[in-house]
């Protein structure tokens, strides 16, 4: 025993020295961008009885979220550590593992992402913690909404406290001011990920669709059974998205205000934070994908973007504009609604790889136009239509029909109020009335008591934006959803059937050429009958 002990005594110091040397060798790895000293730190989530309620009540959906953690983590790790790897590494190998194994049998517990995205976590630990902090908030909101013991007022109060707690970490918290799409899509590195990895990108957006979409059935369900049915339906729709990928996956980032409008309306700050979080996910993917950002600049660019997503001043828009943008981008491009899911699929209006700006341009170009679902199906890749050059009055427009429509619209108190609150619309209305017969102008003047006033009654940005939102939302919604007022024109209603009628139309038509308005008949003229599906 003694000789054995002597041997140990002789050899062990050598072994310890060897081990220490190994550690030092690892620690002395050449720096990528100078020494990185980070003092970011983790913080515990807000305690409460509601914690883990979603896990208990909706285990299937909760486990999917655990799998989502893996998807994000492995994506960043592979993009960062294997920048020159073949596209198939993510598009096939990892994608297949995730969709055929992991999502089929998701992990039971939230994952330790640092053990998956090892290199990425060391490269940008501050941003990893930003994501972690937002994900905690995300999950706790599910818990609150899933807690059947809480009345709605208590849920409101608890989510307000969660929000306050989230904001106690300004070094980690995403801004609750909406950020414009320019921050995500207008940077030198933007769009790289979606173009290079369309399938994986669709998967990530599918994740985000479900993550924000599940709030909607939790909000709109009247009782536990309805909520469970709604969550089950949303999860089932997510799984359908994985079939024939990326055909039915979102084509632009799902916006909370579009996919979960009830939630976004009640908890706008939380919804904005989640949109900023998901935008930042895309930004990191773009930075890591785009070779224009050299490897030794990745960290700096990611930190820069993270700072912009945390502050309240850069790239901001008003909440009303954010709502409007979500509508203008088109829910059919985002994977469709998360409640009231139909058997078929909504028909996207843009091609995969296009930006949100292009989606909005398309929707704007089509707004107000009478198109059936088959037409909109062909809108993928459709060039924005330029209405500015369209002289409607010179297109054999039936003036009496126009005046009739005009009168009917202004008789509607809701429309009248909105027109009166929107300076641009009111100005256009006044100009149009000047070209009308005197009796019509007089008639309309009685409906517009403030017509003589030179300026808008409200000058606040918020009001302006809200008005603009209403007008534009109405236009874009006319292409996607049924009018809630029930006063929409028949043509609008046809357009509204886009989502429903797309059921039997899985594949969009080829890109539609720019439309020549000079050859189109306008209201009062006969339109081709809508195709039935």
């Amino acid at each position, binding site marked *: 025993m003694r000789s054995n002990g002597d041997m*140990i005594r002789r050899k062990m110091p050598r*072994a310890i020295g060897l081990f*220490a040397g190994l550690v030092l060798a*690892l*620690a002395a790895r050449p720096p990528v961008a100078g020494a990185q000293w980070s003092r970011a730190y983790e913080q*515990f989530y807000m305690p409460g009885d509601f914690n883990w309620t979603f896990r208990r009540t909706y285990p299937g959906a909760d486990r999917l979220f655990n799998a989502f953690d893996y998807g994000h983590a492995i994506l960043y790790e592979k993009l960062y550590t294997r920048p020159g790897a073949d596209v198939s590494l993510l598009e096939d190998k990892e994608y297949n593992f995730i969709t055929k194994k*992991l999502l089929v049998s998701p992990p039971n*517990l939230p994952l330790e*992402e640092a053990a998956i995205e090892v290199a990425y976590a060391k490269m940008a630990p501050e941003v990893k913690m930003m994501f972690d902090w937002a994900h905690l908030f995300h999950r706790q909101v599910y818990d609150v909404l899933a807690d059947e013991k809480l009345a709605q007022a208590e849920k409101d109060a608890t989510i307000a406290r969660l929000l306050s707690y989230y904001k106690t970490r300004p070094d980690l918290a995403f801004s609750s001011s909406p950020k414009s799409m320019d921050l995500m899509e207008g940077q030198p590195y933007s769009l790289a990920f979606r173009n290079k990895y369309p399938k994986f990108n669709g998967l990530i957006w599918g994740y985000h669709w479900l993550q924000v979409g599940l709030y909607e059935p939790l909000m709109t369900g009247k009782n536990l059974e309805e909520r469970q049915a709604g969550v089950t339906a949303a999860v089932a729709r997510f799984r359908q998205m994985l079939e024939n990928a990326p055909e039915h996956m979102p084509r632009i980032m799902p916006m909370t205000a579009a996919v979960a409008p009830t939630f976004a309306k009640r908890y706008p700050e939380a919804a904005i934070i989640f949109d900023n979080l998901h935008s930042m996910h895309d930004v990191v993917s773009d930075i890591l994908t785009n070779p224009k950002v050299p490897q030794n600049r990745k960290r700096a660019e990611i930190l820069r973007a993270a700072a912009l997503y945390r502050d309240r001043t850069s790239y901001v828009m008003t909440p009303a504009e954010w709502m409007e943008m979500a509508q203008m981008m088109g829910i059919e491009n985002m994977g469709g609604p998360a409640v009231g899911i139909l058997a078929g699929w909504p028909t996207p209006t843009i091609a995969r790889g296009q930006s949100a700006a292009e989606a909005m341009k398309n929707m704007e170009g089509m707004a107000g136009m009478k198109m059936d679902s088959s037409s909109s199906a062909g809108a993928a890749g459709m060039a924005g239509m330029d209405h500015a050059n369209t002289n409607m009055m010179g297109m054999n427009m039936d003036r009496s029909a126009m005046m009739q429509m005009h009168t009917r619209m202004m008789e509607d108190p809701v429309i009248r109020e909105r027109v009166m609150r929107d300076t641009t619309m009111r100005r256009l209305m006044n100009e149009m009335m000047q070209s009308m017969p005197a009796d019509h102008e007089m008639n309309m003047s009685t409906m517009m008591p403030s017509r003589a006033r030179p300026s808008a009654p409200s000058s606040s940005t918020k009001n302006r934006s809200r008005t603009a939102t209403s007008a534009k939302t109405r236009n874009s919604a006319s292409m996607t959803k049924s009018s809630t007022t029930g006063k929409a024109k028949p043509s609008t209603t046809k357009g509204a059937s886009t989502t429903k009628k797309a059921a039997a139309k899985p594949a969009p038509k080829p890109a539609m050429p720019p439309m020549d308005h000079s050859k189109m008949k306008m209201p009062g003229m006969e339109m081709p009958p809508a195709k039935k599906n």
Partner: protein
Amino acid sequence: MKQKSTRLARHFSAAGLIIFLTTWSAAGVAAQTDFYNTDRGRPVQIEDAYVTERHAFELKLAPVRLERSNGGIYNLGLEPEIAYGILPRTQIEVGFPIAFVEAGQQRNTGLAGLDFSAMHNLNVETETVPALGVRADLLAPVGSLAAEHAFASFTGMATRTTSWIRLHVNGQYTAGPSAPRTSVGASRVGGPAGLEVSRWLVGGAIDKTYPLSALLITAEFYGSKPIESGSRVEYTTGAGLRHQQSPTLALDAGLGRRLNGDNPAWFLTFGTAYAFGIRSLIPFGR
């Protein structure tokens, strides 16, 4: 032989009862814990450089260590601890080491001191700098099996992560008077019974994480100089695993052997850990 078996069964029964009670009591606590964050003795002596996250309490109710020395002498130690993330990257902790010691026909049970510690994580690991942490411990002479003197220890920790494994290195120095050397198997009655108090300790550990299974396996090797005067350097090796059982509970288990010295011994460890928060201690949490 029969007597040994009876003693062994009794020790395992005691350990099992403690484990059962603490695991059962843990199930009702709403909290989260992290299998990835290894602690001293949970499951191995060498730990990582990270602390309990801010505002979290981590309760370790069943850190059991059963040691079988040469000659078939068993020592059972239990050290309930509670840690609190009081500041960013900083935790404070208090432990209550309880020892069950056999020395010949004599059996003693009692508190082996009060262990206060403060640990600070200097930084989070980056591409160029490993995570670094420092800790100060004070083992106060409280309890029937406690040492006669207080001992203050200072520990430095480093953690480096690769895509395959994590490496941890710890170095510790303990200030305080040397205890008189005791006979083999009598435990360290001059020092705290059932506790490993060393003048210095240097060692490392590696661990491999299986994130999809919430499982971590680890192995360690370290050398230490016992606090007893005249003792030789001892070398110890061990291995263990740490598993996240649920969002509220993590379990760990380990097996090790002190390879040389006056008292070579096998030991088994088992522990549970879970975290919770107290809303009134958290800003905006009321």
